[in-house]
């Protein structure tokens, strides 16, 4: 069943189009930087972008930072929102369940395939970022690679980049959980996607609002950028750990609710 769902997702042209589009923006940014040599000053623009002119190996992180606020969550919400509701809209859900695929099994298979999509997408963005970064910019690490100003060895940099990829993936699993949750409630994939995006927009908006500060620590987008802390010297674990815990709670609660709904609902699509 999981193999079937992975097959459906990754043999679908749309999946790869989404991933390709996702990589277009960082590529565009890289080309513009290369042509103009005008990097944003440190502290402005997406994290790490100021440093890539002198160290191309940081570009995977810059690429992730570029797509993180908008493009990546949209892509994840589209795919996860489509997972169950898309089958309902196409009418194939009733045939899958009459096959019988088993409601819990089907949901788990959808979940695994969505998670696989998130991981593949993040890794591809980082990998393309690495290739672009090392071809367009100078590759030797020089002083000031860490956000704190000290120098990281290439090994340290690699290790922390892998951690950052993992962290961004987990943040996106939160988005996926929201979209999958909505996807079990509606027969419209668009509705599920928009539902998840509405949550994220609300969260980002509330985060900037002082009046919302009491709930700020619980907003799903609150710790998204904490992966930058992985590049401080020493690593500042506090927000990273909180971010992981928060996403863990969201994913757990939402998936349980999605399961409870999906296993007891009438399939009338």
């Amino acid at each position, binding site marked *: *069943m999981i*193999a*079937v769902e992975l*097959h*459906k997702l990754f043999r*679908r*042209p749309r999946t790869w189009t989404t991933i390709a589009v996702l990589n277009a923006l960082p590529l565009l940014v890289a080309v513009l930087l290369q042509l103009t040599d005008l990097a944003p000053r440190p502290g402005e623009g997406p994290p790490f972008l100021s440093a890539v002119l002198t160290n191309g190996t940081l570009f995977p992180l810059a690429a992730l930072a570029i797509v993180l606020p908008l493009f990546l969550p949209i892509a994840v919400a589209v795919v996860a929102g489509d997972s169950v509701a898309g089958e309902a809209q*196409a*009418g*194939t859900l*009733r*045939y*899958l*369940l*009459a*096959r*019988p*695929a*088993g409601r819990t099994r*089907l949901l788990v298979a959808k979940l695994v395939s969505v998670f696989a999509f998130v991981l593949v997408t993040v890794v591809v963005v980082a990998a393309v970022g690495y290739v672009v970064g090392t071809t367009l910019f100078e590759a030797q690490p020089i002083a000031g690679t860490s956000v704190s100003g000290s120098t990281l060895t290439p090994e340290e940099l690699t290790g922390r980049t892998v951690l950052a990829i993992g962290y961004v993936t987990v943040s996106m699993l939160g988005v996926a959980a929201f979209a999958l949750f909505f996807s079990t409630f509606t027969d419209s994939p668009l509705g599920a996607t928009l539902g998840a995006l509405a949550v994220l927009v609300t969260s980002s908006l509330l985060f900037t609002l002082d009046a919302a500060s009491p709930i700020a620590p619980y907003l799903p987008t609150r710790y998204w950028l904490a992966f930058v802390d992985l590049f401080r010297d020493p690593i500042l674990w506090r927000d990273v750990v909180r971010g992981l815990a928060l996403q863990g709670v969201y994913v757990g609660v939402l998936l349980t609710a999605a399961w409870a709904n999906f296993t*007891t609902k*009438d*399939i*009338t699509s």
Partner: protein
Amino acid sequence: MTAVIVTRGLVKRFGRVRAVDGIDLDVRAGDVYGFLGANGSGKTTTVRMLLGLVLPTAGEVELLGRRMPRAARSVLPRVGALIEGPAHHGHLSGRANLSLLDASGPGGSWRTRRRRIDAVLEQVGLAGVGRRPVAAYSLGMRQRLGLAGALLRRPELLVLDEPTNGLDPQGIAEIRELLLELNRQGTTVFLSSHLLAEIEQMATRVGVLDRGRLVLQDRLATLTAPTGATVVRTPEPDRVRAALDGRVTAVDGERVVVKGDDPAEVNALLVGAGVPVIGLAPERPTLEEVVLAAARAAGDRVEVRERGR
């Protein structure tokens, strides 16, 4: 005979609508069961409950002797279904669709998959369709592919919700032959439809649904059994009345209904009196008449009940 589909007091409410209102289906092995009902009478809702897609508000369903939806995993691989029209992934070929569906559940070995897919595509007349994506199929081709999906695991029971929807007359005849052939080989067929003619040509047993209630369930042969009268066709109906004094119960153009279940006896009398006879047959109600009468009786019942409140 063993029961294949049994429901007891099956009810489904959608908010205030009672889509299915306490039905007791009884489908036996070897039947071609015709499940008739007007639009919105609850046929699809019933089919969905049989398959565990919609959960009953009350009552229970037994499929092949096992309680649904509890036994879905062991029962449904032995059941082929077509529910309210076919549905496929448009960007994939028919073959790929069948293959993915087969791989999505138990009871369909991958070793035999290719062979089974070839066989059912041949059966439903799609053998030559090639690698075209389903999006490029015609309505009738999709219906055939849906049927192919239902046949893929040689099911003991076929539950088909309006299987001939969208087919041309030739296609309908073809599918009818296919289903009858499968039935001869032992497959029980549960066929929902609002087309009386279709059911009349195929079914051995009939259930009639009217606004969520099962108003009739019996063998087709019993329902359309001779009434005990004889129908005479003649250009001179008045002379029939004269010759068979008092036995004529109805005259409609050239059609005269005469009491007595032996056409030969009626014929002898008429010929003896010199009345020209074009045709003679025992009177049988058509399925349409039976269904309309049952639905009308049920309608009266509802009215009476409402007045009583």
